[in-house]
């Protein structure tokens, strides 16, 4: 997988973040492993610590594995005043986990995220690369139900 991803990019440092994003996108647990960071460092001819400091700086890059579906609920003010707290509590009770945790079956991770730029359709959340807006508890239940059904 990693070699296929790397081959799509020139060997220039300016592509580091694009490369790391592509690796995360291709990984089922949304993570960049130690071994992958090593490969990236040698591909771009930079130190591994440079790669890992970049990974730890950006919130869309991660070195800890997550669930198959990463649910990120916006915690900023425009969503908060449109009742994002009820979205969080609905998700916490549906999934029986708290913000920051992953379900036992490894299917869902629940996180907070900064403003998603959908404040005119608040409250909003993102699951992997799909954004959902104008949320209500009912809508959230249907979305989670749909994802559980889709489980292979």
């Amino acid at each position: 997988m990693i070699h296929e991803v790397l081959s799509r990019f020139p060997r220039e440092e300016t592509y580091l973040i694009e490369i790391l994003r592509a690796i995360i996108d291709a990984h089922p647990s949304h993570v960049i492993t130690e071994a992958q960071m090593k490969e990236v460092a040698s591909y771009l001819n930079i130190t591994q610590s440079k790669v890992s400091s970049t990974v730890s700086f950006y919130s869309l890059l991660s070195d800890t594995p997550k669930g198959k579906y990463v649910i990120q609920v916006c915690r900023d003010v425009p969503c908060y005043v449109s009742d994002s707290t009820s979205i969080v509590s609905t998700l916490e009770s549906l999934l029986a986990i708290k913000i920051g945790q992953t379900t036992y079956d490894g299917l869902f991770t629940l996180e907070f995220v900064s403003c998603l730029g959908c404040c005119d359709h608040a409250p909003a959340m993102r699951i992997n690369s799909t954004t959902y807006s104008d949320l209500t508890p009912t809508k959230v239940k249907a979305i989670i139900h749909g994802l559980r059904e889709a489980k292979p």
Partner: protein
Amino acid sequence: MIEMKLISKRCGIINPQSIQDFIKHDGFSVLERVIKNPDHQYLSEIEVSRLRGRGGAGFPVATKINAFAKETCDAKYIIMNADEGEPGNFKDKYLMEKDPFGLIEGMVLVAYLTQATHGYIYLRGEYLQARTLLENALDLARKEHYLGKNIRQSSYDFDIEIRMGAGSYVCGEEFALIESIEGKPGRTRVKPPFPTSVGLFGKPTLIQNVETFQTIPFIIDIGGSAYQKIGTKSSTGTKLISLSGNVLHKGVYEVPFGIPIRTVIDELGGGMEHNRKLKMVQLGGACGPIIPDYMLDMIIDFERFEEFDSKTGAGAIIVMDDRFSIFDILIRIVTFFEHESCGKCTPCREGHQQLRIILSRFVRKQAGIEDMIALESLARVMHQTSLCGLGQSSPTAIISTLRYFRDDYIDRLDHLG
């Protein structure tokens, strides 16, 4: 009509995936005209227009563009700052999704007038839909020779690449953005030198906001002196407003500068949801001031905003009703900045944590008068000593509430409870 759709006139009207549709609605006509008559002093039109940047700081655009145009170097870069990440702002996303070709025209036009060699769009990591539309627009523009080698049969070459961020608000700051495109963590540098002389890869670099690029073809089209008649004396032209919160009709609206905030909320926003009572409004975005109802007759204008000792911000208006206390809101704002601080300087790195701890005492009604004093002095120190705009402007919300909502603070002091 309160709305004045000048730079957003194509938004919602054209198919953002069709270059033919764009051309049918005057698209690329300004660029064509400029390439055919290269001798006119177009940059002086921008100067006459008195356009100020639309990304938050409101810096005079001509000053930056002229400095950049004078640089002679084998490589000169133009970057469109599309990192929009401040809570409450979504107008750049709107432009990118509704009129992506318009932004390309703006960038190529500025590049041509300043003889830049290469362009980047630094796009917020979460804006995937905008990326797809921009990539499609770049491809089609290349096919029609509005981009690439020998643009419209001229001898000028220029191309644009997209670089995505990866979830970091501070990367919208110019030097942090440059570091990010270079493949590093987004931490700012000490200025000067400014990016227009030593920027990306050590070369002269011009960074402007999405809306700024969208405005420039319009100015060239109608001329600088016609443009500066729109709006107010200190703030010419129109501004895109991102309206959100507890109003009925949230969304992006283009209005001339000089419109009262209340008019935007009542007439464009349709007033409050469920007829609730308005408690406060945050202006600009998370780093802007929070003001009470009685101040809403204030007009949208750079000079007026400077009274709060803050930057204009990017044009967000976040409306909150009286179910919310200022502390619920401030805690969230401080948490946002604490999370987004790059950690390079102490006032910001340590300050946000301290602010949050003090504010949480107000939330729990366990604060003392000394907390109020500490909050005020800490906020001022951060404002004055932080290295970049993040730490300098993040305390604005606190400073403004201490001024306009002093009773709310007093109410939460425990010895009075």
